[in-house]
């Protein structure tokens, strides 16, 4: 720990330089300064329960002493598989207090994936929230001999393991901690150094097995402190933690930003109730990947579709006014008096009440990242009065390394580096970043570390460029940028995002590398397209059946035509298929964070991809479904190739083709 500093040198909040502390040291300091301030809130049995900094520290102390009694020592790993509950952060902080490393595991991961992560990271203790998670570990128990204890939180269904001392309840761990000498925690915490590795975050791994990025206290707190400085977060601001804690995006907010700025973290009752709980909390800032923002928007869209005519017309008009005003401010223009008046009407007539309905009334800052968000979604939120910003960063530099500054938001850029961060773009167009947030490399993967971190520069593998205003613009994965047969380059992700703006299209995968035309796999959205079908009395049974409905195909064709009008001729989708199943992370088609695994999909559905280019009208498919219980079922079906009129023909078009980077 740093030498004691006099109170005056610690700044207005009395914390001093938080990046010179370890996370548990920072918690201890917060507990000393504001013992009764609310650190966490958790909804249980319908009631929000508050945890003060003092209580937070007490739990971390008990966990640390308990783990110490179980023999956990400096540098050992403690894996955590749980939804967003206070025990997650108690366990993390408790482990870090001992100098141990917490490892976040996605709670939706299957048994084999859990086994892989626990084994690869050498975790000696695992926190498994409930029976469901415990069962995943039990399945591979004989291969997990290094795991000394499994700590469970929810006792339901655990009675059958009574007497098995592999298991210990979380309450029993806390009790064990209370029985230990009370100086364990303070002694161990004092030995911590800010550059110690304290947390492993798994990288999403669009290619290959996930790697664990080794994050230090300083990495996390540099980011948390930096974002707080840029945005002016206040102690006591509310944040709702509802995305997987294993994901860097949630980790940085619920731990790094929260402790660096004194933000209150709210844990919803369950994953399913998160959006209702959001309305109750009304957070001051939010971070969510594009799909969450898209789903809010399509919810509003759907509810308006069900409304009566006058209401719908009014909504359309006011939304247009607020959107026009947003366009002006997003492009840096000044609002004219007429537009300002329209915005005022829209504010009271539509956007403020709508924000209230969604739980966004107190929202001052909102972030999206992880993938690109369509400009139209962006415009929708800015019209609504939500200060949505695009951020950019990797797991390896704590999620947010670039962010827009207030009043300087553009939908096609990701803003400027956090204070203290540096940006460089190589001659190949790759984005390199350097800052104290760049991690210490990948666990047991020196090869991969040497490849991506050189001289402190993190090599992102993303193509990007600088805009005249000095903002960073991200184009696509460097390896994903494709070239048509005519040599025009295009970004499949850009095309996919345009198509996915349709509320009826859930997922899209574009093809066309080395081909004359672009084609795509599309997933219809089971909710919106399902509702559309029901309204028109189109009977369907399964998702497969829905996707095969001719009228659904016609609907999607029209949506694709609309999207095509916003694409350059060589980017336009000429043919598409409606895939008979939703792309799923369980089938290795998406990453756990919902990104498309292009290569895996191309290989798995090679027949369909080939049929898109060989002039077929349809392609017979032998589809195998795997259910969650491991059963498989095989169905024979026929996937129809749909043609889009007005798409680019094979003939080369006029030379007016902007470079890809212009609008990614």
């Amino acid at each position, binding site marked *: 720990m740093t030498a004691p500093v006099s109170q005056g040198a610690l700044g207005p909040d009395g914390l001093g330089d938080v990046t010179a502390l370890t996370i548990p040291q920072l918690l201890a300091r917060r507990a000393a300064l504001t013992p009764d301030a609310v650190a966490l809130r958790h909804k249980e*049995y*319908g009631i929000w329960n508050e945890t003060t900094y003092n209580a937070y520290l007490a739990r971390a102390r008990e966990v640390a002493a308990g783990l110490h009694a179980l023999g956990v020592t400096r540098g050992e790993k403690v894996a955590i598989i749980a939804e967003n509950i206070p025990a997650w952060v108690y366990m993390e902080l408790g482990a870090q207090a001992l100098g141990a490393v917490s490892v976040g595991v996605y709670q939706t991961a299957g048994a084999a994936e859990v086994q892989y992560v626990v084994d690869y990271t050498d975790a000696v203790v695992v926190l498994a929230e409930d029976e469901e998670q415990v069962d995943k570990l039990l399945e591979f128990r004989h291969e997990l001999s290094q795991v000394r204890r499994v700590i469970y939180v929810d006792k*339901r*269904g655990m009675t*059958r393991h009574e007497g098995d001392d592999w298991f210990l309840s979380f309450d029993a761990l806390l009790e064990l901690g209370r029985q230990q000498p009370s100086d364990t925690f303070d002694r161990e915490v004092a030995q911590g150094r800010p550059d110690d590795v304290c947390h492993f975050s798994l990288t999403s791994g669009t290619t290959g097995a996930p790697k664990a990025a080794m994050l230090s206290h300083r990495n996390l707190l540099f980011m948390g402190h930096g974002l707080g400085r840029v945005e002016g977060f206040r102690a006591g601001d509310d944040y709702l933690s509802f995305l997987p804690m294993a994901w860097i995006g949630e980790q940085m907010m619920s731990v790094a930003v929260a402790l660096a700025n004194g933000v209150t973290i709210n844990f919803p009752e*369950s994953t399913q109730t998160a959006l*209702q709980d959001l309305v109750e909390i009304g957070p001051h800032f939010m971070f969510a990947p594009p799909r969450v923002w898209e789903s809010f928007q399509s919810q509003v869209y759907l509810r308006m579709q069900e409304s009566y005519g006058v209401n719908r017309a009014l909504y359309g008009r006011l939304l247009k006014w607020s959107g026009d005003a947003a366009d002006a401010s997003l492009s840096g223009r000044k609002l004219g008096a007429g537009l300002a008046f329209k915005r005022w009407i829209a504010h009271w007539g539509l956007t403020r009440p709508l924000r209230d309905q969604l739980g966004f009334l107190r929202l001052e800052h909102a972030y999206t990242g992880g993938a690109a968000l369509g400009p139209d979604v962006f415009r929708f939120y800015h019209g609504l009065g939500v200060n949505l910003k695009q951020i950019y960063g990797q797991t390896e530099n704590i999620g947010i390394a670039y962010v827009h500054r207030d009043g300087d938001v553009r939908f096609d850029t990701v803003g400027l580096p956090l204070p203290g961060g540096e940006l460089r773009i190589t001659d190949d167009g790759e984005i390199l970043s350097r800052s104290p947030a760049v991690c210490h490399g990948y666990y047991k993967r020196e090869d991969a570390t040497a490849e991506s971190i050189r001289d402190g520069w993190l090599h992102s593998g993303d193509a990007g460029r600088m805009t005249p205003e000095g903002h960073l613009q991200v184009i696509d994965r460097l390896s994903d940028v494709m070239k048509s047969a005519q040599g025009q380059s295009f970004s499949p992700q850009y095309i996919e995002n345009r198509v996915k703006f349709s509320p009826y299209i859930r997922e899209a995968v574009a093809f066309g590398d080395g081909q004359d035309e672009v084609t795509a796999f599309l997933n219809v959205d089971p909710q919106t397209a399902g509702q559309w079908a029901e309204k028109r009395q189109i009977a369907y049974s399964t998702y497969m059946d829905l996707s095969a409905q001719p009228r659904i195909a016609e609907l999607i064709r029209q949506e694709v035509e609309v999207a095509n009008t916003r694409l350059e001729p060589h980017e336009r989708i000429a043919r598409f298929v409606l895939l008979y199943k939703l792309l799923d992370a369980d089938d290795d088609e998406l990453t756990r964070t919902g990104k498309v695994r292009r290569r895996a999909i191309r290989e798995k559905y090679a027949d369909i991809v080939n049929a898109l280019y060989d002039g077929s009208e349809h392609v017979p498919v032998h589809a195998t479904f795997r259910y969650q*219980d491991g059963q498989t079922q095989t169905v024979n079906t026929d996937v129809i190739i749909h043609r889009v009129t007005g798409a680019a023909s094979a003939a080369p078009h006029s030379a007016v083709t902007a470079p890809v980077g212009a609008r990614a």
Partner: protein
Amino acid sequence: MPQLHVENVTLTFGGLNALTGVSLTVPEGEVVSIIGPNGAGKTSLLNCVSGFYHPTKGRITFGEHDLSRAAPNVVTGFGIARAFQNLELFRGLSVVENLLLARHTHLKYSLLDSLVYYGRASRREAENRAYVERIIDFMELEEYRSHPVGTLGYGIQKRVEVARALTLAPKLLLLDEPMAGMNVEEKEDMVRFIMDIRREQGVTVVLIEHDLGVVMDISDRVYVLDFGQLIAGGRPDEVSADPRVIEAYTGVAETPGSAPQPVGA
């Protein structure tokens, strides 16, 4: 220990025997299923247990209580709750309101208390809500807590119906086709709930169900009714091998030499 005994029960509707001399035992802490073709008398038997019908002949006891002539509210007081095949919920009320209402028999405060409200009445209401919230947690209904029941999907409504029965803190739970009309996933959930109800809450369960796969998986004991008569009873594997049961289900006796014909052939 309360056990449910049905002794030689006959139920007659104007000359038609819905049940004829049915005797069976439901030991404490077991899951016991009653199966049989449509119209076999399964629901009639449950109606006799829960006091909607009174047996024409015979006796039904639960522990030391005689249920043969007891009214439904009296039966409830003995710790027997029932989830109905045709949902008995207030469609306009929310899930939590339905559950609170179901628990009103457990609310013990006077008219005067309720006029004053503060003090005993508010304390009781708070306890009541806390109990209901534990059931909501148990049945994983948090998401739907304040949704009107009528707006929920059928599978969820079924779950609310079981939750409604559970709020009565029963010792014996009667489930009448809790899985009818559900998809596979909803069925799996319900099976898990039934097993947890038995394991975690120590509640005895009597189950009427058509899905034989489910019945054979989760029952400790199975009774088979056909035309109002008990034709078999015992462990699931014994019952499924019983030729009388096969006959009742397929309409064809499986005797050596005569291969069973498909129904409706």
